[in-house]
């Protein structure tokens, strides 16, 4: 240890105040700079995606790129929405570019809206069934003492952590045997298997937080188990129910791997599958792919922003998301 430590200068009042001000300014500066960096990090990729989606094909291939489109156009979105209603996008009326040079709008553009509809339908069905199965299960595990209760809680945890890719093969064989390949129900069934454990896990924690006396009081007043669940617990657990619904919806909307295995035609293809098929086709217009990407991110982003509070509380309660 060295002994020659310089004595700190005596701190006067003015010195102290000045130091405080400097510290405060530094703090503000650091916060400001890092906020800007963070904003840029999060938003720049998305902004670029959106910006590309409204550029014309001629503009999007400029080098260096135009960060802000000079002549913004909605032609890509128009193509997506019109494709189903009025005219099919065909080889003749695509953007009028030589397909060899790339940059045309694929005929599968007309599948985009149905695929979105499929995604929406699957997600909604999964949410409904998920609640029907998950809520009673969570209630039972939280409030009814029965043999094997702890076992089932751990079991639920275990099913949550198995990688989807490990389940793909058996799921595929089962679904094929049931003759459900390329149907929406195959997706609903398998997504339920993924999402229900998560629902149960979050709800158990919430139900356990509610006092047992509530349950007892309801039962003394002559409620059945079911009534006690419906009339007492559900209204109280609304916030966590919202979180569960949101997660289930987003998981189903975003899921890719299982949908890739089970769906083949537009009868059941979900949006991610169609997007993926665009990306592997080099002839398709870049701005069109980006427009499709924008369409795919709009619903989940809106949901996330509207329900931010519920999502954060759900994430922290569940601590893990599937």
């Amino acid at each position: 240890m060295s002994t020659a430590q310089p004595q700190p200068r005596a701190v006067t009042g003015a010195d102290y105040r000045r130091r405080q001000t400097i510290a405060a300014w530094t703090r503000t500066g650091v916060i400001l700079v890092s906020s800007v960096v963070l904003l840029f990090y999060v938003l720049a990729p998305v902004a670029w995606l959106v910006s590309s989606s409204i550029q014309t094909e001629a503009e999007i291939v400029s080098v260096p790129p135009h960060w802000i489109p000079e002549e913004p156009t909605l032609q890509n979105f128009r193509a997506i929405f019109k494709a189903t209603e009025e005219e099919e996008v065909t080889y003749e009326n695509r953007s009028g570019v030589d397909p060899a040079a790339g940059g045309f709008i694929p005929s599968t553009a007309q599948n985009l809206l149905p695929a979105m509809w499929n995604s929406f339908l699957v997600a909604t069905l999964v949410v409904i069934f998920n609640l029907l199965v998950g809520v009673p299960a969570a209630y039972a595990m939280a409030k009814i003492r029965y043999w094997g209760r702890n076992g089932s809680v751990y079991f639920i945890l275990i099913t949550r952590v198995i990688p989807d890719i490990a389940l793909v093969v058996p799921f595929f064989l089962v679904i094929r045997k049931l003759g459900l390949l390329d149907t929406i129900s195959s997706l609903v069934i398998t997504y339920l298997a993924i999402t229900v454990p998560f629902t149960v896990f979050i709800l158990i924690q919430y139900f356990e937080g509610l006092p047992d006396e509530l349950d007892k009081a309801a039962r003394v007043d002559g409620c059945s188990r079911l009534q006690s669940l419906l009339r007492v617990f559900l209204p109280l657990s609304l916030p966590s129910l919202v979180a569960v619904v949101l997660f289930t919806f987003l998981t189903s909307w975003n899921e890719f791997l299982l949908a890739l295995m089970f769906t083949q035609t537009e009868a059941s293809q979900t949006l991610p599958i169609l997007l993926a098929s665009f990306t592997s086709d080099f002839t398709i217009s870049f701005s069109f792919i980006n427009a499709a990407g924008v369409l795919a991110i709009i619903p989940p982003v809106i949901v996330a922003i509207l329900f931010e509070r519920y999502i954060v509380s759900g994430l922290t309660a569940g601590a893990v998301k599937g």
Partner: protein
Amino acid sequence: MAVLMAVAVFPILYSLWLSFFRMKLTRPNRTPFVWFENYTDLLGNELFWVSVARTVTFTVTSVAAIAVIALLVSLLLNQDFRGRRVLSTILLIPWAIPYVANALMWKWIYDSGYGALNGVLYQLDFIDKYMVWLGDQDKTIFLIANAFVWKEVPLATILLLVTLKSIPADLYQAARVDGAGIWQRFTHVTLPSMKPGFMLVMIYETMMAIRHFDLFFILTEGGPGDASHVLSWHIYVETFRNLSFGSGAAMSYILAIVTFVLAYFIIRFLGRRV
């Protein structure tokens, strides 16, 4: 409950059963029972080990990056300032975006002809000609990891933020009284208190990273060469392109067991709260 069991348990057991067969859809009538041969074959398979190595690279890189970035962001969001709520809401955007859209977005950013990455670096004079980013064997996996990190940081941040918020203010007061500066307060109070949160984030993100599939499927399909040939991609190729369900299932099992070991820790951690 019974339904849940049926949907969740049956596939697991069925998959174990399958992994003992030499099952190929190209030869539907000959599916001999081979015990552990699928597993022992794997140990001698070069591509399998390549994929394990790639998976490890990908996982270590992304988990480390996620932990560091999420730590910085959560420290920022733990401060009180105007616009904090807006910032944390915006932070949720990457989390909400579907992985496929995320992949599509980064594919376009990395695009060799007209991508943003080339554009930025070119305009800033870091490169004098456009590069084929994803075609570079040495860089591919890190670029994919970057896309993965971008998407996973919000969740990790939220988890860390909870731990940060739970550190009692008294601790800081006490440290201040003892004469600890900002840096000392950070290393002696903040970091040790965040350990449980960190463990959770690391384990969870590791689990997510080793099983990750979507980005590899869309960005590179395992290429160039075998530069991004990770385990989950290997399973996919083996099962659905080579249609060899038996060895696919065997590999899935190995992956599942690794995840289980990790999960054991996460469950022990969470189990305290259940």
